[in-house]
């Protein structure tokens, strides 16, 4: 966990929960400084319910020698109860709907005292940290030494994690996110400056035609009509003004083109940069990240979120900036034209923006209702379309139609509510704007007609015409300003999701000074390896064994025993939490990751083929392999025959995840891929478990050829496939339970392997 993540978790707890982000300092001091030796805090958790299920805090703290219960008193202090750590016999967790129980039982001379020493109630929010503490307490009861871990970090992570994962990011302020987003414009600053300048020019140029119009009325049309001037004398001035308006429009439209083109391209370039950076970063992230995040959510971040950011950068930023410039400029021009009328027009504008903003908030709530109803409608679709056979078989079509119609009507009702709102609001707003214009008329008419000087000095017709033209320009920027919050919200939410991925640090990283082994021999040694996915509950518990180069090792044992975790550690998808793995005598964490993985091959139970041709899939690990090598690999994998029978041969395009091939065919392509890579260490993870007998025979033949001359770790459900293994490791409950050859293990009549073998034989015979 990085310092930044730790800070974020603390921020999350403080911002979203009503509990402390760490053990209170005063309590910590009184626990640590108790007795002659300072205590080390191994773990702590918070029980947030009392016996009556009311919210009341009790801290439970496991230290070097004691278990401390600290009940928060209404006065603010703590009532401490210390229990010696070696006095516990049993730990129990009882889970309810929203109230869980931790019970710790003491020892008696003949076993377990049946009255609990500790009985604490707590909510789901505390469950992960309480489970972590319960696990450690169990270790204590078994006399197992606890691994050192930062108790504060464990507590922070466990309480903050559900919020962090739901939220997808921490609580950085919106403005900071916008600034960070805008920093991506830096490489394109020339284009941005030109684009923004063009946009500002468009806005300012829009102010010119009304001014020229007013000028034309006052200086040309009116004097000519009243006989003060002769038309022939000023016709050139009139045409000049018209020409001026035409030039302004031409320049303005050119600037619009320039702005749209430059900023749309800049938006695309930034979105491209973000997508590249995001995808590159995704490649660096550890497998633990992928186990936490949903695939759909990650795809959305790379695709639609970056697309939404393009929209914001290309248009949102400009529109908002220009709306602001427009409103300020229009207000300034109107006030400079005529102070009184200008104020009448400008002063209601902030109120209108506020009204639009409030209306937007109301609409947002209505859309939330629409969204909820829409989800209910799509639930029917996602239920019935994939399950159409069941619907038909149970003759429930009419019922499903009824369910759909009812929800469909609900959606329409909600949309009607939305339409009723906006169709009422916008005419109302326009009415308010027109009322303002009407006020301008009311105040201007007496001055235009010379009947009411109390309203101000006389007003020329041209100035008034200019004024009216300017008032029509208020509508669009007012509308945009009312939507600023929504525009910002959409953009910052997307930016958040993108930046969350970019800010995640890979947990498995190369050593700064890595050891590069050009060609591995394939010796593998596990030395007291421990591992816990959550950092607390060990799934591998002190595993030690050594494998010589070229050995075929079978991994067997009950499901959930730790076989796949062992493989995950060997491939360095995760780093060990204790002990070490040596490959050719070098700690795996010291090896250069890229070169190491180039020499490790893996064939999975569910072979994964990429969208592309069979040739591309076989060449995935060795893109430069020759056609001869590809065919040779396919022959080894028993794949050549079926591939050459395909109409497009090796150029056959296999669909997403290779679904145009059968399971056995996909598996043989994946074996060919592993063969071509020529790995020094090969991992076969249940490679034949989901295929029929004939296909299994072909795959088995292929694998027999594949394993020759390599160190192989094979997990197999069917024990018969591991008869050729040099040794078998029986993994159970994270431990190495048995080790030996097939015959050696069968020699132990009560052994785990013997039982598994007998069970499979019975099933086989029964079949």
């Amino acid at each position, binding site marked *: 966990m990085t310092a930044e993540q730790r800070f974020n978790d603390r921020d999350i707890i403080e911002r*979203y*929960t*009503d509990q402390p982000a760490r053990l209170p300092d005063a309590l910590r001091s009184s626990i640590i400084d108790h007795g002659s030796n300072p205590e080390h805090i191994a773990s702590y958790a918070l029980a947030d*319910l009392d016996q009556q*299920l*009311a*919210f009341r805090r009790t801290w439970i703290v496991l230290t070097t020698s004691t278990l401390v219960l600290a009940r928060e008193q209404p006065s603010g202090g703590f009532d401490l109860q210390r229990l010696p750590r070696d006095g516990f016999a049993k730990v*129990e967790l*009882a889970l*309810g*709907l*929203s*109230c869980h*129980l931790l*019970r710790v*039982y003491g020892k008696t001379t003949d*076993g*377990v005292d*049946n*009255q*609990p020493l500790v*009985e604490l*109630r707590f*909510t*789901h*929010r505390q*469950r992960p940290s309480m489970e972590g503490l319960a696990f450690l307490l169990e270790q204590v009861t078994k006399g197992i030494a606890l691994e050192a871990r930062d108790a504060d970090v464990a507590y922070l992570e466990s309480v903050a994690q*559900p*919020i962090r*994962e*739901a*939220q*997808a*990011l921490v*609580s950085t302020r919106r403005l900071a996110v916008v600034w960070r987003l805008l920093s991506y414009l830096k490489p394109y600053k020339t284009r941005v400056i030109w684009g923004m300048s063009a946009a500002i020019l468009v806005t300012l140029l829009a102010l010119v035609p009304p001014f020229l119009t007013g000028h034309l009325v006052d200086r040309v049309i009116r004097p000519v009509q009243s006989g003060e001037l002769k038309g022939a004398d000023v016709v050139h001035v009139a045409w000049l003004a018209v020409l001026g308006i035409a030039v302004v429009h031409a320049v303005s439209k050119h600037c619009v083109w320039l702005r749209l083109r430059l900023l749309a391209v800049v938006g695309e370039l930034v979105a491209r940069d973000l997508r590249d950076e995001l995808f590159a970063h995704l490649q660096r992230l550890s497998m633990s990240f992928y186990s936490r995040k949903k695939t759909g959510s990650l795809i959305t971040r790379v695709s639609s979120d970056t697309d939404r950011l393009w929209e914001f950068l290309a248009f949102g930023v400009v529109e908002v900036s220009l709306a602001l410039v427009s409103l300020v400029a229009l207000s300034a021009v109107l006030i400079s034209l005529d102070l009184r009328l200008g104020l009448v027009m400008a002063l209601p504008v902030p109120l209108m923006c506020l009204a639009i903003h409030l209306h937007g908030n109301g609409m947002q*709530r*209505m859309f*939330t*209702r629409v*969204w*909820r109803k829409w*989800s209910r409608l799509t639930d029917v679709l996602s239920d019935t379309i994939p399950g159409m056979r069941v619907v038909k078989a149970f003759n429930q079509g009419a019922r499903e139609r009824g369910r759909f119609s009812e929800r469909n009507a609900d959606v329409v009702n909600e949309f009607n509510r939305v339409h009723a709102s906006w169709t009422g609001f916008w005419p109302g707003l326009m009415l308010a704007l027109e009322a303002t214009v009407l006020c301008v008329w009311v105040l201007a008419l007496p001055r235009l007609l010379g009947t009411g000087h109390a309203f101000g000095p006389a007003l020329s017709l041209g100035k008034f015409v200019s004024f009216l033209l300017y008032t029509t320009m208020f509508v669009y920027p007012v509308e945009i300003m009312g939507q600023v919050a929504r525009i910002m919200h959409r953009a*910052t*939410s997307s930016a*958040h*999701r993108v930046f969350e991925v970019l800010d995640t640090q890979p947990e498995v990283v190369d050593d700064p000074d890595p050891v590069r082994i050009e060609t591995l021999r394939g010796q593998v040694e596990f030395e007291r390896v421990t591992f816990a996915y959550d950092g607390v509950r060990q799934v591998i518990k002190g595993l030690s064994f050594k494998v010589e180069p070229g050995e075929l090792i079978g991994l067997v044992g009950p499901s959930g025993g730790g076989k796949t975790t062992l493989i995950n550690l060997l491939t360095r998808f995760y780093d060990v939490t204790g002990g070490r793995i040596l490959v050719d005598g070098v700690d795996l964490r010291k090896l250069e990751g890229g070169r190491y993985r180039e020499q490790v091959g893996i064939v999975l139970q569910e072979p994964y083929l990429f969208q592309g041709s069979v040739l591309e899939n076989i060449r995935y690990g060795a893109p430069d392999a020759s056609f001869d090598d590809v065919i040779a690999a396919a022959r080894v994998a028993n794949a050549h025959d079926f591939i050459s029978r395909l109409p497009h041969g090796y150029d056959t395009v296999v669909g997403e995840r290779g679904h145009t091939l059968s399971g056995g065919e996909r598996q043989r392509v994946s074996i060919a891929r592993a063969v071509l890579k020529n790995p020094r260490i090969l991992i076969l993870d249940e490679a034949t478990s989901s295929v029929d007998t004939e296909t299994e025979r072909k795959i088995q033949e292929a694998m027999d050829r594949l394993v020759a001359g390599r160190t192989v770790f094979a997990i197999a459900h069917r024990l018969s496939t591991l008869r050729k293994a040099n040794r078998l490791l029986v993994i159970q409950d994270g431990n190495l339970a048995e080790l030996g050859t097939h015959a050696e293990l069968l020699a132990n009549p009560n052994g785990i392997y013997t039982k598994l073998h007998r069970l499979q034989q019975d099933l086989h015979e029964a079949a």
Partner: protein
Amino acid sequence: MTQQLAGEPSSPCSSPAHVTPSASTAVPVTAAAQLVLEQRRDGRLWARQADQAAPVKLRRCFPWTFPERYISLQTDDNVELAFVSDPAELDPASQAALSRALSEAGFVFVIERVDSVEEDFELRCFKVQTPRGPRAFQTALDAWPRETPDGGLLIEDVAGDVFRIENPESLDPRSRELVWELVD
């Protein structure tokens, strides 16, 4: 008849009396009085039948559609040890023990008042008042409240805690306004 004992207890315990039938020899109990429920000093609910007893945990089969009845009594390994379809058929002491245990096992927070509902990044943040005290919790934006057959609403927060609005209509106007978009 409504109760039966079946399954195996999860582990031996210090009590001299244990229920030890196996799943394959499940025998329907023929009289309600044969099943006795009691809370023992270990803090747990015990199911006793004749001279056999075991600690049990409770699972309501229909926690929202029929919470008062159909209760499964299970071992720590989730093996059903007994089944109570109607607690009224138990003796009064057993009924009381069952009721106490159910109030804890089926405990969820009841929302009496909503103080605020705000949207944050991908979260909907609630501040509410419950009979147990005030609570702040969060749900995902698309985690909609679930309607229960009795017209109540269940809201599950990101951590998994369940909050119940027993009758949205009976909330005060301000609370109703705050949850308007989430309630029909």
